């Protein structure tokens, strides 16, 4: 069945900003889809509001709309582009929901657009809980299963609390609550008590767009499996991958440690899952493409129940693609345009077709990465609501090798078993008790319990059902540990066995203190010639020859690295996504690969994040799916360098560390010391920028101002500094990303408290104390600098919120909207001086504060920043590509001559008619609850909390800002009630914006103090009591929770800790009610401009290609 000839123009819908439950896996899948469709000669239009994606690079589509993924904006795109079809199955739940809304709104029909990949009925059958249960029962009948209704947990769909209570009376507690049509399991949970039930079901009813929840029999503790399937239009179906969760049912699969392939199924059981999966897929009627089905298996009698299916490419599909080498999204796109599986060649073997099922001769482990430290009030118990922000995957020739590699890929304080001592005085009883609550890093607790003497059966029971096979694998590690500890010397045999089990040099060093730490173990290991070999992911367990160099390390006998005499460059990726280090860095790494490939280098990517484009096996020439630890990177470098030299080539000519965020940057000095050719900004220069004293000297030499500051290693030192420079001060540890541990401190007691909590403080790791500039304008600059000291300003971004909010969380505008020419000239002079003073060779990000017309340097980061993709999209200049070239020796002049950079001018002086791009951060507050089940505080501060970002771009600020809000949070309101409660110091600044909102027809509701000031300015407003004030009727919190408020404006009263507590109830109510909440005066002013733009109703969409052509012409 060849491809359809009637599809000439397809609109691909992306997934928007990175949020918990929907991360960069959809950039990976969307990028693949766009490439496939274009290579088939189809015109591709694309909508995605996330500028940090590769798919929104203008070369991946014919028309790229960086516009909100809402029915309103997608309709504008459809009206303008008139595509033949929409492909919405590769953009996660966001794309699918938008497609459903466009269908229901009659838009698809109006414009004659076909939905390909899945039809609306199939989507509804997959997503609607009750329909889905009927489908599974029908599939069971088709298979001749004895009890088809037993293939799903007993359950009922409820639309009200009354229905919920009646159902639970029948099923008994505990029950699982699942809201319909939410993403990543948002709002679901397990209720053990009537109180849990009231809270979770209540929230679930409001989280569901159709106010519907499913109350379900608990299968807590059952074994959990997933299958990834693909179907073509000829009804051929293949299972791409099986995945087994180590964490039994009860923990969201996104939060579970998972293994591929399934480890503890007999063939009979596996084939039953396969038969059921295929039957369900057919019954649901997924036309073509990928789908994911989850099963629970009762460990006692093997009863299987089908939990859910996603009729689209999912996070698990990305994992399955990376785990098997079978590119699900690419194939799904081909199937959507009419090909059948047997017509598509297997990318890796080239000779065999895609109509087969990959078989693995290795084990894959995925571990989720959490960020609970960013949300102090949030309940860290793992439940059926996904809370992780990223993941790392690893491959090994056995389970323990993969597990140990995955654990050290997390970049947490513990880098695998035994790398951090047990908590003092911890007992077996404590450990077993801790196991009962699923938590981040539970395998550490499992290991400790087993090591302290618990039996496999005891740990299986305490952990709620972790399979004995996995526990025994950990017991084997513990036995090996004992051998290593007890052995008189670490001989070659024992060392080899330790490495085959996946233990790192660092783990061995922890067990053998006489070996002079990790370096000592490595020296011994190299002397004994115990080094890894690199195997290939080939989809077929070596049955056919692989053409794709997708490698993973193993301590086995034969390496498969093909020698090459080309000059090679290693690009180190950024590891698991976390808050502060996400897709933006992967974007820069992919750009480096593209630029260096084009410049003739053989590119070698090293990374361990399965969600990313960088770990697609055809992004770089070679892929090493490895942890980004010093040991693993050094070995990968060695394998490539030595095989390259053996082939008569130069080997590795450069290792790029400055594009993957703090992770590779942190390895720079050690790699250089080990003889690795680190290119770009030297480790010494990195130190100059990151070490406060050295950086102060750089600034002093150039005569640049910085806020008064000092470094302290104790409270007394910190207080002395604060006394000298005056409160408020900004305190933070050195060498951090994402503002980790950063706080604004207003008084001595808070300072004392902060130093007390900063346990890692030492002369090597002092606390930085800076004068905090209240009410300053914050400015972010991305710039390039070459070996000649030539500087190219990439872009100057003006933050909308005042300084003090982490740059990653504040919205910003480019070009700057209020800065004067003299400010920009000053910014340029400062940036040039810093770039030259530090010795940057590549990218530099500088943050400034402008207060009372005086420019201060806040910090400089000699690496690609989070804003590089945003700036690149807003200015049409690929900064990361240029940075990679500069690192390998190109000059800015050469890059200008080549056309990679504009011939003249730079991003510091944008043309007067340049469009305004607004970046808005997306925050995950509604994912989290306190232990008591309340919403957590949404107040922003110097510590970064956002998971992703969007870009709104238009000719003026108001429109651009409105778009950014639509893309990030759903649209700004155009009518309704606005609740206002602002701190005294903000009352003056709020008068104008609130008056304007009142004039626009909004009803204003305010607390007493705010209302008084507003009335004096002639603004009519309703007064409402605060929630803690006694009185009749609604208070502020109940009003918001009641859903009557369209927008909340609340700035915190007081300072320091009291500011944090003030208004907490109001802000958390806004989070719970899912309505916009503005916490700063400039934010309110921007919102007013956005609201005005929306009320005018003249929103337009324009492809990036157009905008870039205009910009390029102006340059």
């Amino acid at each position: 069945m060849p491809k359809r000839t009637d599809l000439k123009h397809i609109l691909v819908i992306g997934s928007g900003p990175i949020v918990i439950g929907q991360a960069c896996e959809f950039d990976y899948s969307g990028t693949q889809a766009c490439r496939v469709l274009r290579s088939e000669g189809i015109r591709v239009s694309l909508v995605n509001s996330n500028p940090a994606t590769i798919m929104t690079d203008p070369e991946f589509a014919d028309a790229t709309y960086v516009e909100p993924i809402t029915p309103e904006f997608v309709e504008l795109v459809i009206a303008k582009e008139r595509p033949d079809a929409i492909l919405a199955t590769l953009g996660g739940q966001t794309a699918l929901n938008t497609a459903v809304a466009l269908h229901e709104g009659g838009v698809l029909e109006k414009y004659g657009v076909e939905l390909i990949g899945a039809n609306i009925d199939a989507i509804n059958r997959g997503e609607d809980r009750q329909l889905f249960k009927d489908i599974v029962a029908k599939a069971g009948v088709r298979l001749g299963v004895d009890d088809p209704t037993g293939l799903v947990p007993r359950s009922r769909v409820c639309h009200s609390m009354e229905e919920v209570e009646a159902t639970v009376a029948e099923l008994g507690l505990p029950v699982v609550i699942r809201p319909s049509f939410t993403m990543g399991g948002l709002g679901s949970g397990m209720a053990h008590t009537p109180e849990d039930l009231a809270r979770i079901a209540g929230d679930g009813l409001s989280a569901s767009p159709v106010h519907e929840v499913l109350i379900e029999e608990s299968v807590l503790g059952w074994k959990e499996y997933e299958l990834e399937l693909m179907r073509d239009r000829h009804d051929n179906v293949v299972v791409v991958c099986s995945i087994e969760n180590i964490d039994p049912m009860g923990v969201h699969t996104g939060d579970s440690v998972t293994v591929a392939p399934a480890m503890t199924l007999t063939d009979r059981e596996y084939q039953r899952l396969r038969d059921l999966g295929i039957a369900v897929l057919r019954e649901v009627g997924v036309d073509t493409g990928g789908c994911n089905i989850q099963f629970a298996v009762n460990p006692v009698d093997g009863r299987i129940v089908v939990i859910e299916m996603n009729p689209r490419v999912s996070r698990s599909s990305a994992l399955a693609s990376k785990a098997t080498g079978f590119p699900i999204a690419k194939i799904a796109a081909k199937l959507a345009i009419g090909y059948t599986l047997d017509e598509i060649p297997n990318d890796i073997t080239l000779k065999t077709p895609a109509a087969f099922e990959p078989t693995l001769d290795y084990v894959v482990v995925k571990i989720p990465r959490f960020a609970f430290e960013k949300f102090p009030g949030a309940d860290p118990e793992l439940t059926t609501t996904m809370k992780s922000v990223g993941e790392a995957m690893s491959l090994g020739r056995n389970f323990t090798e993969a597990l140990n590699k995955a654990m050290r890929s997390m970049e947490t304080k513990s880098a695998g078993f035994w790398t951090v001592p047990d908590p003092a005085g911890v007992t077996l009883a404590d450990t077993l008790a801790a196991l009962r609550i699923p938590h981040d890093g539970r395998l550490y607790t499992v290991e400790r319990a087993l090591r302290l003497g618990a039996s496999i059966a005891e740990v299986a029971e305490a952990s709620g059902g972790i399979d004995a096979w996995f526990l025994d694998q950990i017991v084997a590690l513990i036995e090996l540990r004992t051998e290593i500890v007890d052995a008189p010397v670490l001989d070659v045999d024992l060392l080899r066995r330790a490495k085959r089990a996946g233990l790192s040099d660092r783990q061995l060093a922890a067990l053998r203190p006489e070996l002079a730490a990790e370096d000592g173990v490595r020296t011994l290991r190299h002397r004994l010639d115990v080094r890894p070999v690199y195997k290939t992911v080939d989809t077929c367990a070596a049955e056919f020859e692989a053409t794709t160099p997708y490698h993973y390390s193993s301590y086995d006998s034969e390496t498969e690295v093909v020698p090459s005499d080309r000059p090679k460059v290693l690009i180190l990726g950024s590891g698991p996504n976390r808050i502060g280090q996400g897709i933006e860095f992967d974007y820069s790494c992919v750009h480096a690969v593209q630029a260096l490939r084009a410049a003739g280098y053989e590119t070698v990517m090293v990374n361990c994040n399965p969600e990313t484009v960088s770990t697609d096996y055809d992004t770089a020439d070679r892929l090493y799916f490895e942890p980004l630890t010093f040991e693993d990177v050094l070995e990968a470098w060695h394998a490539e360098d030595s095989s390259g030299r053996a082939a008569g080539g130069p080997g590795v000519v450069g290792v790029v560390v400055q594009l993957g965020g703090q992770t590779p940057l942190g390895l720079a000095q050690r790699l250089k010391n080990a003889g690795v050719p680190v290119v770009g900004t030297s480790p010494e220069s990195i130190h100059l920028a990151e070490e406060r004293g050295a950086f102060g000297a750089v600034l002093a030499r150039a005569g640049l101002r910085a806020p008064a500051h000092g470094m302290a290693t104790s409270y007394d030192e910190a207080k002395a500094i604060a006394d000298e420079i005056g409160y408020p001060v900004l305190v933070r540890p050195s060498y951090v990303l994402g503002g980790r541990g950063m706080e604004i401190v207003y008084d001595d007691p808070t300072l004392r408290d902060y130093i007390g909590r900063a346990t890692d403080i030492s002369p090597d790791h002092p606390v930085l104390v800076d004068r905090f500039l209240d009410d300053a304008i914050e400015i972010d600059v991305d710039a390039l600098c070459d070996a000649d000291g030539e500087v190219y300003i990439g872009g100057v971004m003006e933050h909308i919120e005042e300084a003090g909010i982490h740059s990653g969380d504040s919205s910003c505008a480019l070009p700057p909207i209020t800065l004067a020419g003299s400010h920009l000239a000053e910014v340029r002079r400062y940036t040039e001086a810093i770039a030259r003073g530090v010795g940057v060779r590549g990218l530099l990000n500088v943050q400034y504060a402008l207060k009372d017309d005086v420019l201060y340097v806040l910090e400089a980061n000699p690496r690609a920043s989070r804003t590089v993709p945003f700036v690149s999209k807003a200015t049409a200049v690929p900064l990361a590509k240029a940075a990679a070239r500069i690192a390998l020796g190109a000059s800015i002049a050469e890059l200008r001559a080549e056309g990679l950079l504009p011939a003249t001018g730079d991003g510091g002086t944008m043309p007067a008619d340049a469009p305004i791009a607004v970046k808005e951060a997306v925050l995950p507050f509604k994912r989290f609850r306190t232990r008591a089940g309340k919403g957590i505080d949404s107040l922003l501060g110097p510590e970064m909390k956002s998971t992703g970002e969007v870009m709104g771009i238009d000719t003026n600020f108001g429109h651009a800002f409105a778009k950014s809000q639509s893309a990030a949070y759903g649209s700004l309101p155009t009518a309704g009630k606005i609740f206002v409660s602002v701190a005294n110091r903000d009352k003056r600044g709020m008068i104008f914006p609130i008056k304007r909102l009142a004039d626009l027809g909004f009803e204003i509701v305010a607390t007493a103090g705010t209302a008084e000031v507003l009335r004096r300015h002639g603004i009519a407003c309703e007064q409402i009591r605060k929630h803690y004030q006694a009185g009749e009727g609604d208070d502020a919190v109940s009003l918001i929770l009641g859903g009557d408020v369209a927008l909340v404006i609340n700035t915190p009263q007081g300072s320091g800790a009291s500011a944090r507590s003030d208004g907490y109830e109001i802000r958390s109510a806004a989070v719970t009610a899912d309505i916009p909440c503005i916490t700063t005066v400039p934010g309110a002013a921007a919102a007013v401009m956005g609201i005005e733009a929306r009320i005018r109703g003249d929103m337009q969409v324009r492809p990036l290609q157009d905008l870039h052509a205009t910009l390029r012409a102006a340059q």
Partner: protein
Amino acid sequence: MTRRRSAILVLEDGRTFPGEAYGSVGETFGEAVFNTGMTGYQETLTDPSYHRQVVVQTAPHIGNTGVNGEDDESGRIWVAGYVVRDPARIGSNWRATGSLEDRLATEGVVGISGVDTRALTRHLRERGAMRVGISSVDTDPQSLLARVRQAPQMVGADLSAEVTTAQPYVVEALGEHRFTVAALDLGIKRNVPRRLAARGVTTHVLPAGSSIDDLLATGADAVFFSPGPGDPGTADGPVALAREVLTRRIPLFGICFGSQILGRALGFGTYKLGYGHRGINQPVLDRATGKVEVTSHNHGFAVQVPGAGSGAVVPDQVIDTEFGGVRVSHVCLNDNVVEGLRAVDVPAFTVQYHPEAAAGPHDADYLFDRFAELIEGAGAPDGQQSDGRTHSSRGRSNA
């Protein structure tokens, strides 16, 4: 943890892999073949088709679910030796009744673990299946190599007599009896009569040396030629029997070795594949429907039809034979090997792969329905034959 005894694996071309003893301590020889299935080791070990073969499992962890009383495909383990990377220390499954390693030891199966099975597989892929020895008693590579080179070759091996049942036995139909089938046991797997029984077929399993009269004496409506080990080029007895069946226009179905026998009975040759098909992920195209099924394979030989060179696509046309026209009904999409034959003028069809699965996917289970339809059509009063194309209950559970 007690350390395992060292062991060694030596291939006939001299390549050597160190490892540790697994299963029984001792020495064994056979033909080295690799199996890429990620599940189903118990079925693989007990499949008589692996007689005299040393099986290399590409899946690194073997033994995770132990062994149970239900998944054996015959009465014993048949593999001549077993090569794995990481044997399980415990079996964990609700049906498990014991550990795999204990079972291997009990049945005297010599194995080796800790081997770089991927390197070994790549070697076999490049050089072809070859003789191998495993020893945990004499780990000197040279002396073992000498013995490997004295071991018998698979080409020319007639093994049916070694694996067939000593006495005939009957597997009764489930539910209403519809047909009786005489199955020639050349190394049959238990799941074949089970799949037939599910369709109302009573199966008389007969020893390999049975005559046409023995077959007819069962009152059979049809004849089945089973899978099994060895070189089909030596199976002159079963080939002659198949010709008798074809001559009598008795419905015939064959699987794997049985398919090669039909091929020879029709006048085609057989040949040895470089390294064979052994796994449960092989894509086979059913030319009658154009659909792809993911199937279980275990064959080192294949049927050579006229007009098909090595690796070339077999023409989809009727080939004239002594018994009338024959079509190549199924081909493997990986390498275009003939995977099924269907006679046009006599009621006979066979497949080279394993619709009974065990281990493997159930996609090809419909072939048992085709067989039932073929029998039904042959027995119809007007003599009309079903063309065996319909497969209404595709995807039916095998469980």
